[in-house]
């Protein structure tokens, strides 16, 4: 898939406007509802996942609940997830996890927002299940040989988020400071978080 708009971009932009107008005329949606959806999606970002990760690093009981049920753990922090069924997979010293949807672009969007363009690309979707370490290296991430890599293909009703390893040198940091370390790519699993100090 090309990232740049293709020649047909104008056609589908017009089709969006045409369909929206028809749905409004038929009383199926209102312009305000469409705008509210746009605003709600704009407000979702990986920062919400980062908040969960920071809490899990500080509170072992929360971490246990998060690994048992990701959606309930999000709601516990007041994060609205709608119908999302979230599975959180934990990185450890021995296991590293990475998320993909080879069939389309499934992503915990109700929590983290719209996925990045590369996540939906042919290159990522095709190769990360077959040559995951090579793909991670293209993101600048080199995994030690003794770490097992698990690729999670989101093919049906569950969505996935990685709980990254807490960087060394962060003892005593509060949740806000820890959350600021967490990157979107570390929640997908194509990046690891650098040690501090």
């Amino acid at each position, binding site marked *: 898939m090309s990232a740049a708009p293709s020649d047909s971009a104008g056609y589908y932009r017009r089709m969006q406007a045409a369909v929206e107008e028809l749905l409004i005329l038929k009383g199926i949606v209102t312009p305000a509802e469409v705008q509210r959806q746009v605003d709600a999606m704009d407000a979702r970002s990986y920062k919400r996942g980062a908040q969960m990760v920071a809490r899990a690093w500080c509170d072992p009981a929360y971490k246990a609940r998060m690994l048992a049920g990701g959606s309930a753990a999000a709601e516990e922090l007041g994060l609205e997830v709608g119908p999302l069924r979230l*599975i959180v997979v934990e990185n450890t010293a021995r296991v590293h996890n990475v998320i993909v949807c080879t069939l389309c672009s499934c992503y915990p969007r109700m929590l983290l927002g719209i996925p990045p363009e590369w996540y939906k690309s042919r290159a990522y979707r095709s190769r990360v299940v077959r040559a995951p370490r090579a793909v991670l290296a293209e993101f600048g991430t080199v995994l030690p040989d003794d770490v097992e890599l698990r690729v999670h*293909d989101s093919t*049906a009703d569950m969505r996935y988020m990685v709980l990254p390893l807490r960087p060394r040198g962060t003892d005593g940091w509060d949740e806000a400071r820890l959350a600021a370390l967490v990157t979107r790519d570390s929640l997908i699993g194509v990046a690891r978080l650098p040690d501090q100090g």
Partner: protein
Amino acid sequence: MSALDAVPARFRVGDRVRVRRADPPGHVRTPWYCRGHVGTIERLCGAFANPEELAYNRPGRPAQPLYRVRFVAAELWPDYRERAADAVEVEIFQHWLEAA
């Protein structure tokens, strides 16, 4: 979705299963790359309406148990060049699985 409306789960965590090798037309959520391969049930995710039916705006009931199946990368890809212990996990509906 109530449990009464679901097909009973046939497999348990740790069971070895083979993904059916089938090639129906239409909307299917079983990736091509795992069809015919053997993996291990990692967890039962619940029971969900069958997407093959939902794709045609039919109810997809009774709900099908959905599993996460773990495949050893080197088994999926005979020419796998990375670490032998690596794994790929895929959500697969029960009607695509048979005991291995």
